[in-house]
């Protein structure tokens, strides 16, 4: 009997984990770096438009490698051209006459690299895009890969209600902004002697951070009876980050695309959303509409003109969602007093209140929210 129990126990242990996903270190040759990448998405609203030109980097060390010194212009089909000029490395800015950004307008891109090579795009036609109809969220629990490993948070959705004359090809971008707080105001510090800041400095207590959600969301409605879609899933915000603690805002950008630009983004989405599974598809080479005029080297990226609509949504702290995040503050008790602190570390922050301090050392993140990458200037769209 004892033997049987042991056997069953062994059995269960052996079966505990059947499949598994683990990190993998591929051996990839570096021969394909330094291809030119052009990200040129002209929209129908912005007065100043931006075009990014860069080079590819090694997969082991992904970085934005700007390509400076290009001559960039957008050309309309009547021959009118609009020049773009480099403001920061690799970022070229320009203005296009709104008359050339009406639905049906045909634009193309010409770039001459610093080496004098000429890159041209196919012409892209400005589609007609609908307004964003609705963006909303729901409290959601996602199950993790291991049983019991659940994540709570909110899932964003959007609806699409377009008319028959609108484009049937769409993609969305999401820019998120959230308020976060440092744990303490700046009050006590030590640089060989203890100082108190009076009154306490609250300027670095509250910050706002803005980030681009790094996923491609694309949809076409050509196989649907109507040019419409309900509950298109956007991103998920987990309770394990500080995003939902003091106010969270998303800007959803809806792009109506031409069919060829959609094909480009759809392939980008498929390639960047690979996952484990028995029936996974092979990644495919993404072909944009850019070519070298005089050779058959590859150019990555795409030139597109699209109708953009933006919508902003605020989320106050979500009732019923328990947050569990780290503020990035660590406190250390100085057991041996100030001797533990080396002069090169000065100044260091101490825990304290209006009256006195204690022998507890605070990390920079405890008193300075800028350390976490945000800004301490309230964005103009922030409600409170």
């Amino acid at each position, binding site marked *: 009997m004892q033997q049987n129990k042991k056997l069953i126990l062994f059995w269960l242990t052996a079966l505990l984990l059947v499949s598994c996903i683990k990190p993998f270190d591929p051996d990839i040759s570096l021969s394909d770096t330094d291809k030119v990448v052009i990200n040129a998405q002209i929209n129908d609203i912005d007065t100043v438009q931006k075009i990014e030109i860069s080079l590819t980097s090694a997969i082991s060390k992904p970085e934005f490698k700007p390509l400076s010194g290009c001559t960039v212009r957008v050309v309309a089909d009547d021959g009118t051209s609009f020049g773009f000029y480099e403001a920061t490395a690799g970022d070229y800015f320009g203005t296009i006459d709104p008359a050339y950004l009406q639905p049906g307008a045909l634009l193309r891109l010409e770039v001459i690299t610093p080496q004098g090579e000429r890159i041209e795009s196919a012409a892209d036609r400005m589609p007609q895009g609908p307004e964003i109809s609705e963006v909303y969220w729901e409290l959601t629990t996602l199950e993790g890969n291991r049983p019991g490993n659940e994540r709570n948070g909110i899932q964003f959705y959007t609806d699409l209600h377009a008319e028959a004359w609108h484009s049937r090809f769409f993609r969305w971008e999401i820019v998120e902004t959230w308020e976060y707080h440092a744990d303490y105001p700046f009050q006590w510090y030590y640089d060989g002697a203890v100082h108190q800041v009076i009154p306490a400095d609250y300027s670095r207590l509250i910050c706002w951070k803005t980030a681009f959600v790094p996923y491609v969301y694309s949809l076409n409605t050509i196989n*649907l009876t109507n040019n419409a879609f309900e509950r298109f899933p956007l991103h998920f915000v987990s309770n394990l980050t500080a995003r939902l603690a003091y106010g969270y805002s998303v800007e959803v950008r809806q792009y109506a695309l031409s069919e060829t630009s959609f094909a480009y983004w759809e392939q980008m989405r498929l390639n960047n959303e690979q996952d484990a*599974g028995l029936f996974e598809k*092979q990644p495919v080479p993404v072909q944009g509409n850019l070519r070298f005029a005089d050779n058959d080297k590859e150019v990555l990226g795409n030139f597109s003109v699209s109708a953009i609509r933006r919508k902003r949504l605020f989320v106050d702290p979500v009732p019923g969602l328990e947050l569990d995040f780290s503020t990035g503050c660590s406190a250390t008790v100085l057991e041996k007093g100030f001797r533990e602190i080396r002069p090169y570390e000065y100044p260091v922050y101490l825990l304290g209140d209006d009256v006195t301090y204690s022998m507890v050392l605070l990390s920079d993140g405890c008193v300075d929210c800028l350390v976490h990458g945000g800004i301490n200037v309230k964005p103009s769209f922030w409600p409170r």
Partner: protein
Amino acid sequence: MRYRLPFLLFLVLLTIMAQAQQPSGRIASKMTGQSFASFSESVYRQSGSMIFDPMATAEKLKVTIADDSLTVLQMVLKSVEGTNIMVSPWHQHFVLLPGKMLIQSLPPYQKLTSVLSTADSSGKVPAKARYLEGRAPEVVQTIRVGAEGPAKSSGRARIQGRITDKDSGEAVFGATLFFPDLGIGAVTDEKGLASIQLRPGKHLMRAEYLGYERKNFLLEVRNDGSFNINLARTAIQMEEFVVFGDKQMNMKSKDPGLDKIVMKSIKELPMMMGERDVLKISGTLPGIVSTGEGASGINVRGGGSDQNAFYINRIPVYNTSHLFGFFPAFNAEIIRDFAIYKGHVPAEYGGRLSSVFNITTREGNKKHLMVRGGLSPITGNLVVEGPVVKDVASVLLSARSSYSDWMLQRIEDPSIRSSAAHFNDFAGGVNATLGKTKISAFGYRSFDRFRLADVNDYHYINQGVSLIGERMVTDNLRAELSLIGSSYSFELTDKQYAATAYQHRYQNNHYEARLDFKHLAFENHTFDYGLGMIVYQLRRGIIEPYGMASLRQEVDLGNEKGVESSFYFADNWEPNPRLTVTAGLRMSLFTPLGPKDVLTYADGLPRDLRYVVDTLSFANNKILRWYLEPDIRLSVNYSTDENGAVKLAFNQMHQNLFLLNNTVSVSPSAQWKLADYYLRPSAVNQVSVGVFRNLRQWGLETSLELYYKKTTHFPEFRDGADFISTPHVETTVLQGEQQAYGLEFFLKRNNRKLDGWLSYTYSRSLIRVDDVNPLNDINNGKLYPSNHDIPHMVNLVMNYHLRRRVTFSTIVTYQRGRPVTFPVSAYFVNGVPMLDYSDRNAYRIPDYFRTDLSLTLEGNLKKDKLIHSSLVISVYNLTGRDNPYSVFFKNEDGKINSYQYAVIGVPILTATWIFKLGNYAAE
């Protein structure tokens, strides 16, 4: 990894060498008053020689030996000194018999055959005479064949023999009839029939087969005729038989690129989840690859997974797995044997490019009721068989069902964890022999249901019936008429997004009638000829919106019809006992039929719905295209000497049916599709050369084969192809060429204490899609490795028969990782990292290595018992290596992380209980 293989090889060699130790070696021998049992154990431990005491005559002896070191033979002789027990050396073992020697003067096995084959027809060879006296002291039964009368003018009579099992009445496949005086022989086919030409007169004939008694007859040939022999199973198999029977299989009759699995031979191999999977086991043979756990397709000699034809009693099976490849769709308990043709494919088969898997089930016991079954952690199965009319008609019924889907709960994927799966299969057959006519009916049905969380609901059904009538028209002509119907269907509901939810029902029907003849026409010529017709009916189904919220547009994928008519003729010619030439021609005509609306596209542009010019309408049963498909099948087999042969084959095949699938393994929603107005049938030419050699002193058989194949009109799918959004498949399919070549090495050892096989395959499979229109190219028209291009593969299968009732088995598999497309560089768009990918399949996932182990414990060997049961304990993936099934790259918080996904990354232990009525040897 690289060091593990040579080490294993070394282990194998070491064990073989240990086995080969001769009884003449000296060993420590001093002992006093030991029991005979411990004496024989000590002999076995030291020398590897076993002492058999069938009459238990030495059981009570006490052994005392004064000498320090003796040869094993001397020791055994000493141990029985003073009794009437006589010691007969047998291989390196000993047999004790009271008062007589086993076969006192039996010459060493190798010599025996050479003496027999060089003997003249007078048959007066002392060795042979002694052999017969020793072996068969009883009267040799005489069989008279043919009517009395003048001998035939040709001087030779055509004789057909049929060998059946004495107990069950079933045909015995692979049994040999050997004529020692003439040095010639014949092997029975799957019907139990063997043909041979003999001069009138009396000939000594020996019939034998693995696991059956060996029987000698005196065959008195008068004229053309036939005879029947019943062979009884031996309660305890004598190991001797096999070597010869199998040698015949390998050397004389085996076509190049033919592999045969007899279920008996694999019953001890490790099982995954307690199921014996003939397809997985076939993957340990050279040239056959499975892309990984949970991959339902197999790839033969670099071909696609839809290039294999599977038949169970002539019923084609279009989906051969349960639960996406984790389980086989056939109940192993009803399979008698399993032949795989991958080189020379007999002219009677056609329709697939790479291989034919022919499964023959048992016919059902014609003598008495038999029940067998098994219980594993996932499934239970039961087989009942017995006579309807004793010795005339039998019935066989099998049922198998899964009763638990616990396995899914262990998979590291939340959507699979909340899923449910169920499968079952049923088979039934009736066989009747009425004089010269044999009628058999067989039906098969398998069902699978899979619910993937609340996202997907999926089920599929394979079903079919075959009715086969077989008649000996004359003594030299056998005719077989078969009527076959088969259908594969699936239904899929996709509910992932309410707005795009849909339902799809697909069905593929196959109706076939064929007439086959086997004709022993002239001296040394056997003709196979026949004709057949297949009607394919595909209802590709309608993509219907599912649920009120679905906005999906209804798409009718349409129906398809096609007729494949064929005839074939093949001549199996044996100009002399050393040379066999098989030359065959198969002529097929495939005609896709209307009703069909075919779109025509603008010249010079890709086939895209944007460039449609016109529509051609074909009325019902109007022929869309004529595809005439001649196949030449040629095979030459030359025995260089009694231990070796050289084989050559040239093989042509055509395929009219494809699987629309663009995932690496076969996806559950993959649809079969006929060649049509645009999509042309694929064709392959294959050349193969093989060398075969028996290394008798080691008990080994080896073979080395080389092949080269070139496929034209190989269907490949456009990047991101979607098969449910348009009925016009030509817009998503491109046709290119495929090249495959390789080398296959096979080493096999049979019926020893340690037996099994070792296979090594070097194989390449490359595809080129280089269209006249560069927009249709894949990989810029350059050659690229296919998804199943696995250059190196090594499999080791070993059984160690510790005792008759205890066997350890292991399977060790290594294969090079399959090709994948990797990202080679990164770039940023709006601050988000993106990936740029390599040429198609330019990289490989890490190599695959797995070790399985099993222990088979048989119940007792008593001859008279009601139920025999056995327990098989298997560990799948003993080392727990997490063999990557796929590799993927994820963009996580601005960083690119790479991951590998292993379907099964731990050892899996299962226990299976198998039972049957009767004793150990009951069938």
